[in-house]
């Protein structure tokens, strides 16, 4: 019994290897990129537009709206990073309905990679927003004594991000696998539906948490301007 798709290795040459996680990730990347390309190839700027364009517009504007609701003033700036996080995680869990597919997010390596990206992106966005000094100063707020705790909090939340997503996705796949051995009919389907739901929830949680961290990093010293046009 396999815990992660990392263990399914198709090709290995010393340090380099090609396991199921990477292959499925490529598949998802290909599907997302080609699908977006096909739909946005002929976008309409008028009032009449295709259903696919409508769908993508809904998705994009919803993500934008969520980022804005979290408290980031310029959502378009973070749309690329946060939106892609959500779309990748959501697509990865949605595709579990395909037989033989193993979600890449069920691999701790993938979730750790995503958490590391967030871990790196947060200070980057923070520095870009309020400068190097301004950002690092937030670690000694309110006092210098808080610096180690702030650093620990930074690291631990990254770990928590990675483990939370991994645990949820892996558990979903594990439960289905176990149920298939016990009750091959009906129940696996129910659990698959449940898995879809938890997958969507985890995608939302992951990206929203990342947004919150970024927001915390970018507005630390700001006297919280009017909470934007929160709707």
């Amino acid at each position, binding site marked *: 019994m396999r815990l992660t798709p990392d263990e399914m290795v198709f090709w290995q040459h010393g340090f380099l290897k090609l396991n199921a996680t990477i292959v499925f990730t490529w598949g998802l990347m290909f599907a*997302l990129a080609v699908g977006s390309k096909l739909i*946005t190839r002929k*976008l309409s*700027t008028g009032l009449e537009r295709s259903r696919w364009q409508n769908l993508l517009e809904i998705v994009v504007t919803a993500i934008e709206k969520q980022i804005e609701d979290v408290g980031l003033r310029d959502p*378009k700036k973070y749309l*690329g990073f946060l939106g892609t996080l959500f779309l990748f995680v959501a697509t990865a869990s949605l595709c579990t309905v395909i037989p033989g597919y193993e979600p890449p997010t069920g691999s701790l390596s*993938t979730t750790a990679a995503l958490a590391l990206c967030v871990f790196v992106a947060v200070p980057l966005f923070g520095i870009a927003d309020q400068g190097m000094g301004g950002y690092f100063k937030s670690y000694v707020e309110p006092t210098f004594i808080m610096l180690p705790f702030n650093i620990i909090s930074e690291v631990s939340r990254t770990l928590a991000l990675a483990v939370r997503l991994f645990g949820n996705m892996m558990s979903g796949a594990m439960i289905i696998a176990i149920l298939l051995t016990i009750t091959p009919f009906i129940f696996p389907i129910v659990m698959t539906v449940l898995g879809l739901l938890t997958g969507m929830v985890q995608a939302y949680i992951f990206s929203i948490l990342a947004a919150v961290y970024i927001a915390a990093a970018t507005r630390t010293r700001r006297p919280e301007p009017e909470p934007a046009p929160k709707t």
Partner: protein
Amino acid sequence: MLIDWFTVGAQTLNFLILVWLMKRFLYKPIIDAIDAREKRIAAELADADAKRAEAQKERDEFQHKNEEFDRQRAALLSKATDEAKAERQRLLDEARQAADALSAKRQETLRSEAHSLNQAISRRTQQEVFAIARKALTDLATTSLEERLGEVFTRRLREMDGKAREGLAEALKTASDPALVRSAFDLPAEQRAAIQNALNETFSAEIHVRFETAPDLVSGIELTANGQKVAWSIADYLTSLEKGVGELLKEKDKPEAKTTPTPEAKAEPEPENKAEPKPPPVSVEPESKPETKAEPEPEEPTPETESK
């Protein structure tokens, strides 16, 4: 170990590539499209606003023009009404004037008719009166009257003033034919002799006289000699009286036409007109006088001398 660090690195790279791909193929075009649409909608809304404002403006303008038009129409209407009133007044005045002129003309016509009728009646009355007088005198003229006439005639001859007598004497002397004495009735012999004597005495010469009867004299004697005439007759009186009355009527008519404009007063002026001229011709007197006195005339008659 659940974490494979190579896979972690590969997945990180994959994720970053995916971020770039998504930005390139999804977010940018979609956001661009949304922005373009929003811009276009905003432009359309602005355009609609502008159009609405323009429509409002045009509507205001139209309304303004409409009001202007209404006002002009009202002004024109009132003007036309005024003109029509003025025209009506003018026509009424014209008609009134025409009616006045017509009635004046009619009155004038009536007046002139009345006048001419008046004149005709006057003339007729005059003729009638003279005819009556002539008839009455003719009827009254008798031989005894003739005698009286002869006496008057002879007395006149004798009393003739110098100048007239000389003219007549000259005429009698130079005449080749005998003098002609005309009378309405045959004169008796003694009267003829009396006249002959009177002539002889008056002109102190032997004068040849021829006697003739002329009934148109009505009553009287006329001596004619070589263009000179000595006459005394009622016809002459009547003629001169008629002439006088005619002149009087003419004079009376003129002022009367002006003073009596009403045709109703027709009947009244007539008696007045006639009453006045009548007394002088003594048409009443000759009727009564010849019967009582038989010599009304001798007082008034004056021998006329006419030179032909």
